[in-house]
Each structure stands twice: as structure tokens, then as C-alpha cells.
């Protein structure tokens, strides 16, 4: 349905020449990647990547593998949702991995059981809290506050001191990692209560990731917050001239990113039943990579939560695919790096093509 209409000043405009949604390209890339692993699996190890090949299991697809694909990206995926809205606003957040480490340590120290075999927990960070376990809401709220405070500090630095986001969040990255190490003097913190451990049990990380992805998809698409975030990333001056309180909005964006990093930390420490100062290392780069692969433009103003979810799935497929093909983990890193660069090159090419079509 190519309907060409005459626009202002006799110019023509073809509505069919609108850019396709970038998510479509990401979805095609995801399907292609699955097909490639399927073909390589059949050729190299005579096994199927996607389909069930065991006689004693009555399912079409290899369900355990599909579960692992999404489970292993769910926690970083939660961080990626926060990073996505930061990048859409034209910023970047390098601190999310360290915030995960710091938050996991602090939250876990309030989630420890008070007693072990009837005796006071010898590893308790706060033995003075007594012999009764704290309700699960306490470590959750403490964890969320940690993430939000880190995000607010990032936002205030970026919005009011005009420090580039790269530098402000780099500072927070180093500081939060230091805090994580200082909190327990480098010792891991373990023995969470059952209710805290339940947060990250089984497929719970996936359920939390999916719920947050749906929520933030709605927020970005249908609320004033989402629209202002896109506007700031698209043209910050225009947003300011239109009356958007840009500085205040940026603080909110980074606070939400911090909050999502802290949710990831709570889920991760719960899943692992322990918190360590090194937790979340390099997660920030994986999260940025998921967003970029999902079509979020590093120049701001463009991208979506759906794209980031698809980007996360591509990540999961790569990791599972390499394990499936029994290839070393080194190759995973190399291919991941190449895919990130490829995604950015693709974004640049797409933008220059759109400009050329004008």
C-alpha cells in the first residue's frame, strides 16, 4: 500500500518508505542465530540445538535448553532494562555491575538467618539484631534504597554538574565496588533466610525479568516519563525549550536504573544463596551490549524494551550455542565483542541510510 501524497511546497512523501521497526531486524537476527546453531549442531556434533532428540522425553523442543537460554540472561536482562532507558535518554551507565555487587552485599547482610542449628549464626554481619530472622521485606527495601541512592547520585552529578555520564558513572562504578569490598572486608556473606532464597529460586528470575520488561515496555511507550525520556535523547535542547524539566527527569532515569540494578542484585544473591564483593563484574557491559544489539542507539532517542529483551535472548543463544557446540568460553567472549561492534556499525549505517533517503 504505497500511497504517495503531496506535502508542503509540492514535496512528495511516501508513507511506505518509513523505516521498519529495528526490533524486526533483531528478531530476524535471533532466528538466524538459532538456525545457524541448529545447522552447525547437526553437521558437527550430530545433535539438535532447538529440538528434543531424547527418546524418553515427549516434547518437540529441547525445553531444558530453552529454559537455560533465558535463565542465564534474566538477571543481566533486568539491569539491561534500566540501562536501555538511560541510553535512550542519551546517557550511559557504567556503574550498574558494581551497584549489583554493593547492593547484593548490603541486602544479603540483612537477609541472613539469625540462628544455625539453634545457635547464633557465626557468620552473621549484624549479630546484635537478635536471634529472630528479619522479615524478607527488610533486605529487599534496604537493597532497593541502595540502588536508588547510587542512581540518584549518578543523576545529580550528570544533571547538575554537567559531568559526562561516562565519567560520573565510572566514578560510581569504582566507588560501589570499593563499598562492596569494604562492607564485609572482602568476606562473602551467606546463609540467607528461606523467604529471601525463594526470590531467586528456579525460574523466578525469569518471571521477574519478564514482569519488569512488560512493565517498562508500557512505561516507555504509554507514559509521560517514557515520552520525555525519548525526547531528551532525541533533542535535549528541544525538550528543555518545550518545558520539560530535563535535569529532574535525568535524576529519575538514573534512579530507576539504579533501582533495577538493585533488583538484579537481590535476585542474584538469592539465587546463589551468597553475596560476594566481585558479584556483577562486567554486567554493566553485558547490559549495554544487550541494549545495543536490541537496536537501542548509543546516540539516544531510539530503541525499545522489546528490542533489549530480544538482544538479551541473542546473548543467551550465543552462550548456550557455544556450550552446545562444546567450544571454549574464549570464543564466546570474542564473538560477543564482534556482535556488539557489529550492532553499533549497523545502527550507524541505518541512520545514515535514513538520512540519505530524505
Amino acid at each position: 500500500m504505497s500511497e504517495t501524497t503531496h506535502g508542503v511546497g509540492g514535496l512528495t512523501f511516501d508513507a511506505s518508505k518509513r523505516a521498519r521497526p529495528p526490533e524486526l531486524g533483531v528478531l530476524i537476527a535471533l532466528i538466524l542465530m538459532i538456525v545457524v546453531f541448529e545447522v552447525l549442531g547437526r553437521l558437527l556434533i550430530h545433535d539438535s540445538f532447538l529440538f528434543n532428540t531424547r527418546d524418553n522425553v515427549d516434547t518437540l523442543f529441547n525445553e531444558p535448553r530453552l529454559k537455560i537460554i533465558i535463565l542465564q540472561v534474566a538477571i543481566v536482562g533486568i539491569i539491561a532494562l534500566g540501562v536501555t532507558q538511560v541510553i535512550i535518554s542519551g546517557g550511559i551507565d557504567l556503574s550498574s555491575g558494581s551497584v549489583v555487587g554493593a547492593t547484593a552485599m548490603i541486602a544479603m547482610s540483612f537477609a541472613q538467618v539469625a540462628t544455625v542449628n539453634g545457635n547464633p549464626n557465626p557468620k552473621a554481619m549484624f549479630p546484635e539484631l537478635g536471634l529472630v530472622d528479619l522479615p524478607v521485606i527488610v533486605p529487599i527495601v534496604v537493597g532497593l534504597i541502595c540502588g536508588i541512592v547510587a542512581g540518584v547520585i549518578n543523576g545529580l552529578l550528570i544533571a547538575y554538574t554537567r559531568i559526562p555520564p561516562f565519567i560520573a558513572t565510572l566514578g560510581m562504578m569504582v566507588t560501589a565496588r570499593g563499598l562492596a569490598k569494604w562492607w564485609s572486608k572482602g568476606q562473602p556473606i551467606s546463609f540467607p533466610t528461606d523467604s529471601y532464597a525463594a526470590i531467586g529460586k528456579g525460574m523466578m528470575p525469569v518471571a521477574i525479568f519478564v514482569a519488569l520488561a512488560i512493565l517498562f515496555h508500557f512505561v516507555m511507550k504509554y507514559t509521560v516519563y517514557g515520552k520525555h525520556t525519548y525526547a531528551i535523547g532525541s533533542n535535549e535542547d528541544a525538550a528543555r525549550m518545550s518545558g520539560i524539566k530535563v535535569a529532574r527527569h535525568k535524576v529519575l532515569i538514573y534512579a530507576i536504573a539504579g533501582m533495577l540494578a538493585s533488583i538484579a542484585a537481590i535476585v542474584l544473591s538469592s539465587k546463589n544463596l551468597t553475596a560476594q564483593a566481585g558479584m556483577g563484574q562486567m554486567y554493566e557491559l553485558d547490559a549495554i551490549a544487550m541494549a545495543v544489539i536490541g537496536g537501542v542507539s548509543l546516540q539516544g532517542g531510539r530503541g525499545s524494551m522489546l528490542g533489549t529483551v530480544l538482544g538479551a535472548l541473542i546473548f543467551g543463544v550465543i552462550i548456550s550455542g557455544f556450550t552446545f557446540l562444546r567450544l571454549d568460553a574464549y570464543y564466546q567472549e570474542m564473538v560477543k565483542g564482534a556482535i556488539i561492534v557489529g550492532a553499533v556499525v549497523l545502527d550507524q549505517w541505518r541512520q545514515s541510510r535514513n538520512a540519505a533517503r530524505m
Partner: protein
Amino acid sequence: MASDSQTKATDRTAPQAGAQTGEVILRTEGLTKHYGGVHALVDCNFEIRKGEHVAIMGDNGAGKSTFVRQITAVEQRTSGKVWFDGRYVDFDGPLAAREAGIETVYQTLALADHLDVPDNLFLGREKVKVRLGPFSILDYKAMREATMRGLERTGVKIPNIRNTIENMSGGQRQCVAIARTATFHSKLTIMDEPTAALGVQETAQVENIIRTLKEAGEPLILISHNMRQVMDLCDRIVVWRRGRICANLRKEETDGQDVVAYITGAKTQPEYEAAG
């Protein structure tokens, strides 16, 4: 106090303006803006009446756009007073100015490239279905309908309002920026060089929109370097030089050469001698 100031300002701008029937919609007194040591705007006394179309002319760097940014509160003035629609105003930001009824088409257009037409028209003052603070839920349908009405009012033809600004021509972008002012039934429209980057046909389209505003009795401040356009569309010309007003001329009492003489500094009206 406001009354005294009003008289003082009128005294200074009125002599050349001749008989004017409409009420004053905007008046500034001693409006000044310094950027560090740079005095971009100095002691500007300006007024415009309802129904009047006033051109602001001057060389690059004369202070025209700076003046607009103070009126619309994109920047906070260093000193001076502003009255709008009969009351003293000190807007804390552009949204307050827009809500009071000052609509501006900026030189840069101030459009978000990755958003579509309704999103740009309602940027900063979105229609919402459910109020939840920053997370209020947008009423896209109402915004689309209002956009269509605004475009209709200005005669602007945009084939598909759901297209993003980045996919539009320069003329279409300009028309979207102008339609934004029409959508909100402003009390005063300010256009900062609206046709500077347009071709002949697109310029004619914008000029037609300006005539429509005139017919509707809506006041306009037009910043332009185009002498023909100014003579054609405006009732009065205020000339800026080195951050100061140096002339206030009625169209029928001047001509292009005269205006150029004021712009270049060859002439200055006696009451504006401070402009040097």
C-alpha cells in the same frame, strides 16, 4: 508600581508607533541579559499590542534571539521587567511561558527528531488519561485529534502525522513547528527566522500561515532578515543593534534602505542614542 512602569515603557516606544488601538499584550522594561562579560541584551524596552505584527530586525549577534529567549524563559534574564497580558510575569521556565499563552517557533525549531508530529506538538504538555505524576498515562487519541485540528487551522499538509520528524523535509518540519503554535490558540506568537532555511514555495506557505494569524487578530513577533517579508507581513519594525533597540519604525513611514541604515549603524533614532 506596575502602572508607573507601564507608562514609562509606553512613553519610550510609542512616539514612532503612531496610533494603536489594541491593548498592550507584551511589554518589557529594561530587559537585560549578560553572559559573563558579554552584554547580549541591554536595557530593552519593547511592546506589542493585540492584533499587531511586529518585526525584529538586526545584524547577526544583535540580540534578537537572546531577547526571545528571555521572553520565553528559556534563559533567566539578568535584570528587567516583563508584563504579559496585563500582568507582571517572571516565568520560571518555557512551560510557564507557553501556559501563559506565548508560543514560539525557535530558529532551531525545537523539535525532537525521533518523535512523531503529535508527540512534538504536545511535548511538555501532554494530554493524559490517568494522572500518576511523571508516570501519567498518555491520551494518544486526544493528541492525534488535536494535532489534526491544529494542522487544519494552519493549512499545513503533513501526509502522515505518525511519521517521525527525522523523516520529514525542512519545510514540513517548519510547518510542524508553526502548527504547534496554532494548536494551542496562543495569545502571542513569536517566530524566530521561520523561513531562513526554506525554499520559495515553502516560504510562501509559511507566509500564508502568518497572514492567517493576522486575519485572526493574533499578535506576532517576527524575527527575520528578509526585508520583503517584513514589509509585506508586519505593521512595525523594531531594529536591534549590539544588544540594544536602536529604532522603532512604522512600516508606512519607512523603507528598506532606511531600515538597513538603522541595522548597520548609519542611523539611530534620537530616543535610542545609547545604542551608539
